[in-house]
């Protein structure tokens, strides 16, 4: 009896010790499909950004708009209407970077206006910068188009399943006429089914 007990406890200890293992750090592919959980993740961000940019650049209307010039665009913001805290600025960053890379548009960045103002003020009034070489106020070019959008979601769940549907809508508005020159949407559906048996 005593021997069996000893063996049994030895096995338990050995098994428990097996449970704890060393941590592993490794590099992965930044564009690999990520399915850690059902929440909005990097794959969704990449999918949304690349689909929107492709659609914008390949649109025939945009082709005619950008034939002889590179219009100036400002990105308003993506409104987060989902039930997750999503950094929508990161989505707009991805999109504007891709669009800028295509060479069809030029951008003005509204999120850095304060910093620019501060710098210009320093150049003008700081006394350190040569006044003849200081950047003048009132020389910037105003945006002609505004890019904006919405990200919304519908979440449903029961005891076995959770389903999340994301819809991402983007529009490009001509600021002078108020006409929407381009709009598109992309959808993502993710489903999580619970494991049957677990700890």
């Amino acid at each position, binding site marked *: *009896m005593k021997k*069996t*007990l000893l*063996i*049994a*406890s030895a*096995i*338990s200890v050995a*098994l*428990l010790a097996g*449970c704890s293992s060393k941590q592993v750090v490794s590099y992965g592919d930044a564009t690999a499909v990520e399915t850690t*959980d*059902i929440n909005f993740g990097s794959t969704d961000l990449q999918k949304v950004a690349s689909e929107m940019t492709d659609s914008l650049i390949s649109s025939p209307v945009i082709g005619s708009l950008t034939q002889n010039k590179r219009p100036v665009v400002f990105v308003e913001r993506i*409104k*987060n*209407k*989902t*039930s*997750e*805290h999503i950094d929508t600025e990161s989505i707009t960053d991805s999109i504007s970077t891709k669009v800028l890379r295509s060479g069809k548009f030029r951008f003005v960045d509204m999120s850095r206006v304060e910093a620019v103002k501060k710098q210009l003020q320093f150049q003008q009034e700081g006394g350190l910068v040569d006044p003849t070489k200081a950047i003048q106020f009132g020389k910037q070019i105003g945006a002609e188009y505004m890019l904006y959008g919405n990200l919304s979601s519908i*979440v449903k*769940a*029961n*005891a*076995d399943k*959770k389903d999340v549907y994301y819809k991402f809508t983007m529009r490009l508005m001509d600021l002078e006429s108020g006409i929407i020159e381009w709009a598109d949407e992309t959808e993502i559906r993710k489903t*999580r089914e*619970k*494991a*049957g*048996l*677990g*700890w």
Partner: protein
Amino acid sequence: MPETLKKGAVFCIATLLSGCASIQLNNLFSDYATSQKPVRAAINAGNVKSAQSMLEQPTAGNTNYQLAMLEQGRLAFLTEDTKQSQWWFNQSYRALENERAKAKVRLGKGVEKFNTLVTNDNAISYQPPAYEQSMMHSYQALNYVFQHDLEGALVEVRRANFVQEQALKQYEDELFEASESAGIDASYINNTAATLNSRVGDVKNGFQNAYTFYLSGLLYEAAGELNDAYIDYKRAIEIYPENEYLQRDILRLGSVLGMQTDLEAFEKQFSVKASEVLSAKPTANEGQLVVIYEQGLVDAKIEKSVRLPIFTSNNDMRFYSVSIPSYSARSQSLAPLTLSVQETADSNTAKANGLVVNTQPIVNVQALVAKQLQDSMPSMLSRQVLRLVAKEQVRRKLSKEAGDVGNILAGIYSMASERADTRSWLTLPADVQILRANVAAGAHSIAFNNVNIAATEVKIVPGKITLMLVTKAGQFSTVRTVTL
């Protein structure tokens, strides 16, 4: 030898299971409500900082993990430590999400069930009921609001609404199941049920919380999404139809959105008339002041001994004494807050009489928690019966093998381990009341007429909603203001 082998195998499995499940025994022999008394006393004495130091530190694996995080978050909220509070509530949400993502059949839960069989319900890890989850998201939404992040607040509001929708769905399923399988007869615990019934009043269910819906509507309204706001106000009025401010909001938004059929139906039901509401619309140089008044601390559960009749295998009835959670019959008295709004005039001619307004209740948390307990009573009792049987088996076995000593030991163990599950989020307010008034733009001084809180300065912005959160529990009070 086969017998030894069998015993060895059982021992081995038991050790393994208990090793991974990390059973916590510390919560088993004390009840939560009693252990939290000093914390609540410190809050009532106005000393939230010392209450915070007395709180249990949340540790993953502890059966009170979820609860400890909620208490921490709420106390951080009371000390106006927005970042810290936000962090705790976020941790709590993530823990809940992890819990929800877990497998349908769980070995760990099996071990827990086994543990409750030989100990008590405190061995089950605490899962916040829907009303606590929706309150958590409401506080989280306010945390975002106080950081001027309306979009983030709306995310929390959507989560709160999702919790309530899920709870409603689950509740309907459970009602359906309950009608099919008759559980044990609860009429034997009449004395307990009676106090519960009087507390519950006419609350329909233990999870639908008009305050969360109202906050949601208010934030949607501030964000200019009037249709969403209208829907949430409508949900709130379904739960709390008596609130006149809510009635006014519905009539006001309904007429803006042109919901004619709705309006006609509501007018018949309400004590306020639509024409009255429309004539009292805020003018161009007026803003709206919304006051949320949180009052007191929600009552703690108490242990109550009941004698449960059990039929033995010989079919004779025996009474066993068990303890179950309940509420005392006397609940604290709740009163509306009266405040007077006085213009802090730039000139020396201060106006003689300002606006005097009263808050009206939007949720009675006391009734919600009582209803929640009432709803969970059948399953609690059936666990209790199983536990009695298990403990009786242990006693018999011990008395057979160890005689009188074994019998006495088993008896002592049964008594000591007979602890009711009195866990609930104890730093929540007892009730929440609201008020909405049109106030001329500019600086105002707000005096609280019937409670001992110092007058507060508030700046009303034309066309905007100024939210004022007043919390009062015993000697403790805070007033926080934000323009939405």
